[in-house]
């Protein structure tokens, strides 16, 4: 193998030394090329355990077959290499930390470079236009990556220190830009490669690609924002001042996992504005359609009872409706002060709205106020006495006084009123009753009533004997009485007289018709 190696190495060097035009012409250089490629194949074999070839079968195979073998070996290697390159592009420190791995990585890088260059040379000889171009593009991209890495590590040693890395700054800026344009920074390079692969391999599945792109766009939109937010929220010391081994291992794992995920989810390149707008619109449409199909929020459902809405949900909603009633007055200091001012003014004016007591009706009728005439009476005293006597003796004959007339009129009026009231209040109305008038029947001879002639002339009496006499028991004449009976009569008379005298003690002077007046003789002298 060492001889082969040596020859292989020499072959490589020889190849490198030859000029490009020589490749075009079919010549002995092909032998050299085959040796070199076989040598390289052997070198790369340990990194690719899955390949079916132990050795590059060169003899008797044409260029196409050799190329296919190389391709078979290279494909898995390329993807892993890309991952590594990306990782190292982000944190170049890891290259040194990893130790063995780092050396290998650097070797790999070189190998990759050489491999690429070899590939390019092979491709040039095969002359397949598409592949050439793509190979060029791949090379360019990887070169760019390489250059970036080199630049980042080498140039800015003066400014950079433990805290500040220009590379990190640039990465941050690029991430921001990617965020703005809707692509995830992490996946950018891989995405580009993937897209190219898709274009190359599956021309028929453009629709699928589109869908994938859309989904990826969605994913990128949704995921990117969240990831960005998460990144900002969960900034830790370690992010700024270097991580530990755990973190890097995690990241490696994550990256490997992400790779597979990305391979499935990714699919979009930078979209044009029209496409972006269209995508946004479609998302909006989908949202609105979904909202229409779902049941409405309870506030939009018209009349709602408490059972149909969630508990205490009315407290959260700001209910606003017009109140038709005036609100209750809030009693502030000013209100109280104004009230008190009003009261004070009313007190000063003494203007109150009290209850006025109605004047009550007198319970007793007023006493008959006798009218006192000031003027001299027309009648003489004797005439007054005469009238009184006449009234006592013959009541019917006497002229009536003023008060009597008033009384009569009043009684007549009252009787009429009573009649009317009775007719109002009695349901069973009685006919007009006979008004009994009290007329005094006096024992006056009938002729006296009819005639103007004096009383003493006629003898005929109006009253019947039994109406005159109101006695009882045996009636005896004076001559028939015995002595005891006479005494008894006298005693009875005396008793009666005494009783009467006790009743009215005042005797009028003129009634005294006895012969001996009580007046003193002295009065006669005057």
């Amino acid at each position, binding site marked *: 193998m060492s001889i082969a190696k040596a020859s292989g190495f020499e072959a490589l060097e020889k190849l490198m030394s030859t000029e490009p035009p020589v490749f075009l012409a079919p010549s002995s250089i092909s032998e050299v090329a085959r040796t070199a490629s076989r040598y390289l194949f052997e070198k790369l074999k340990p990194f690719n355990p899955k390949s079916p070839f132990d050795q590059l079968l060169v003899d008797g195979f044409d260029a196409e077959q050799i190329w296919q073998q190389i391709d078979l070996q290279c494909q898995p290697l390329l993807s892993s290499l890309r991952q590594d390159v990306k990782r190292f592009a982000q944190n170049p420190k890891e290259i040194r930390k990893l130790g063995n791995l780092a050396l290998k990585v650097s070797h790999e890088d070189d190998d990759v470079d050489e491999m690429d260059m070899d590939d390019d040379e092979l491709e040039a000889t095969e002359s397949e236009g598409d592949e050439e171009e793509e190979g060029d593009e791949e090379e360019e991209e990887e070169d760019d990556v390489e250059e970036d890495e080199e630049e980042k590590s080498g140039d800015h040693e003066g400014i950079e220190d433990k805290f500040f890395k220009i590379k990190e700054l640039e990465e941050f800026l690029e991430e921001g830009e990617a965020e703005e344009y809707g692509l995830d920074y992490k996946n950018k390079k891989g995405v580009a490669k993937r897209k190219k692969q898709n274009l190359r391999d599956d021309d028929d599945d453009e629709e699928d690609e589109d869908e994938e792109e859309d989904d990826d766009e969605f994913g990128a939109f949704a995921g990117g924002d969240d990831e960005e937010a998460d990144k900002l929220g969960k900034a830790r010391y370690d992010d700024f001042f270097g991580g530990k081994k755990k973190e890097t291992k995690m990241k490696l794992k994550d990256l490997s996992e992400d790779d597979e995920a990305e391979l499935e989810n990714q699919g979009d390149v930078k979209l044009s504005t029209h496409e972006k707008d269209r995508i946004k619109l479609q998302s909006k449409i989908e949202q609105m359609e979904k909202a229409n199909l779902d049941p409405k929020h309870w506030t939009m459902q018209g009349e709602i009872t408490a059972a149909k809405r969630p508990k205490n949900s009315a407290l959260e909603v700001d209910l606003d409706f017009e109140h038709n*009633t005036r609100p*209750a007055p809030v009693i502030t200091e000013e209100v109280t002060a104004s009230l008190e001012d*009003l*009261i004070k003014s009313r007190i000063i004016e003494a203007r109150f709205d009290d*209850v006025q007591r109605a004047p009550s009706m007198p319970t007793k009728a007023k006493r008959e106020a006798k009218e006192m005439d000031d003027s001299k009476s027309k009648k003489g005293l004797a005439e007054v006495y005469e009238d009184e006597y006449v009234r006592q003796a013959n009541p019917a004959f006497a002229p009536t006084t003023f008060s009597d007339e008033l009384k009569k009129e009043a009684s007549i009026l009252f009787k009429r009123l009573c009649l009317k009231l009775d007719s109002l209040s009695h349901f*069973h109305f009685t006919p007009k009753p006979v008004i009994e008038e009290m007329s005094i029947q006096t024992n006056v001879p009938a002729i006296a009533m009819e005639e103007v002639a004096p009383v003493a002339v006629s003898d005929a009496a109006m009253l019947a004997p039994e109406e005159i006499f109101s006695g009882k028991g045996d009636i005896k004449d004076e001559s028939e009485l015995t002595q005891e009976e006479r005494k008894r009569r006298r005693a009875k008379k005396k008793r009666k007289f005494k009783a009467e005298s006790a009743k009215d003690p005042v005797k009028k002077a003129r009634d005294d018709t006895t012969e001996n007046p009580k007046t003193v003789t002295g009065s006669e002298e005057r």
Partner: protein
Amino acid sequence: MFPSKPFPKTLIRHQHQTSSFIASPTLKHSRKIKMLRRNIRLRKEYLYRKNLEGDERVQYEKKMKIREALQEGKPIPTELRNEEARLRQEIDLEDQNTAVPRSHIDDEYANATENDPKILLTTSRNPSAPLIRFTKELKFAFPNSQRINRGSQVISEIIETARSHDFTDVILVHEHRGVPDGLIISHLPFGPTAYFGLLNVVTRHDISTKKAIGKMPEQYPHLIFNNFTTQMGQRVANVLKHVFPAPKVDARRIVTFSNESDYISFRNHVYDKGEGGPKSIELKEVGPRFELRLYQVKLGTVEQNEAETEWVIRPYMNTAKKRKFIGE
């Protein structure tokens, strides 16, 4: 229109008996029947008088026209020519009492001014302690009043006992979780009932302890009614006025009912002449303070469910905010 049943037996001196006379009832039973019949008769009279009001109104209008024509010296309108002589005679006989057309509403308070009002205060069922305290305060605020426990009495029972004991007004107080929120003033001999809602109630117990706040004078107070301008306002003022008796001229206590956009403020003050001359007055607020909001007036007592409503609040009308029923 006339009562269809005959009157109680005691008033009639007829010989024949009434058709519905029950043979030999007990004394108590017969008294009850009499009371019942009396009430029925009174109510029928009231309805009859109410019916006559329409005619009375018409007559009054005619008399007014004739009076005006006579005063101004204009010829009497032709439609009244036939009745003119009779009406003129009536006009001459009228005095200030009969000249005004009477309505059944006025009859309720016709006799109220003769005697001092006698008030019965009580609460709704199962009153809380704050409500009882508030009722006690109202007892001091309204002179000549009495508070009774509600227990489990029915409203009709309360009204019956009040009527028989010659109370003039019954006041019921209602509450919501300790805060008084309703007041019903019912005038007793079939009088009107006014229903109020209470707001912003501040009781004497809330302000400070018994010792700190001191005693309240129970003098018959002067009354102030402010801004009761409409007819409904006058009616409410009447109802509230007749709950109080007529005071002395030099009374120191003042009760104020002030109306502001249909909310009536009740205030209870005691005043003293200040030092700075006759124009200065020191007011000291005493007693509970609350806002009344009238929501119903019924032409009957509290127990009469079928009584006619004179006025009821309409808060859900679109123009409710613009209309003011009591004042302004």
